[in-house]
């Protein structure tokens, strides 16, 4: 599996570290909304298809990346620096935070 880092270009997956589901919305640190914290920690969409993910190019430029990966084919559909906004790949994630 190759991931195209926006800085380094295409690199083997061995250079990258998976940082988790990219659809999570972290509640404000002071939030006492237990449902929101529960959703942040436990709820996962686990789609069979396109999936928003956060990866770090830990064995290269060390940038954090927002990656869309197809969980069935492992095709990497897009990569961009994690800094900045994003859109969910899954309509079920909308309005959940």
């Amino acid at each position: 599996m190759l991931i195209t880092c926006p800085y380094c270009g295409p690199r083997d997956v061995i250079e990258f570290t998976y940082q988790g589901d990219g659809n999570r919305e972290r509640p404000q640190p002071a939030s006492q909304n237990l449902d929101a914290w529960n959703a942040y920690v436990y709820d996962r969409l686990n789609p069979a298809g396109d999936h928003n993910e956060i990866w770090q190019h830990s064995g290269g430029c060390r940038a954090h990346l927002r990656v869309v990966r197809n969980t069935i084919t492992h095709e990497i559909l897009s990569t961009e620096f994690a800094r900045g906004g994003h859109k969910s790949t899954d309509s079920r994630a909308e309005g959940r935070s």
Partner: protein
Amino acid sequence: MAEQHLPERQSPLEPDYHPGSHGNFEHGVDVILSETRPGSILQLAAWPGEESRLIEIIRKVTGLALPDGAGGGVSSGGSAAFGFAPGKFTVLDEAEGLAQAFADAMTPAIGTLTDLSHGRTTIRIAGPKAEWVMAKFFAIDFALPAFPLGAGRSTNHHDIFAQIQRTGADQFDIYVFRSFARSFWKALCYASEEVGYEVQ
């Protein structure tokens, strides 16, 4: 201020650094391995949006004009610079004291300066089979069009993080953590045996 007397730097490669020809060199030596021992190795990082100001500071202090683009770099005489991550650059000089030269120009508003002179070891591999040996270690394209002269790359070999700069058509400088340098050096020597190598 009294003149600083820094302890003489010792090479971590020393117990396994054996000048001379080794391996399968009966038909000629196809790679030359050496340690370049630059006096200063710095890492400069710009805050987001300050990259062009940092590139200008590097040009003023070292005279090196960094080209635009990811991994762009330049190597000239005893000094070199290259980008290794977004907004981050490695700058080196054969003389010590480069950190002091940057200290005034590098204000906190622009970014950070880290002196890695004692933290990295620089290994040079040169010769007609340099690309071949490097390709056994790192899964990146070493061909000249994909990895132009002066350019830098960040990658790793079995968790030993490495920065690589192409300093000649068939020459690469590899920056590895000093504590891993001897292990990496031994692996590089084994990998070079089949083509015949000379340690200088």
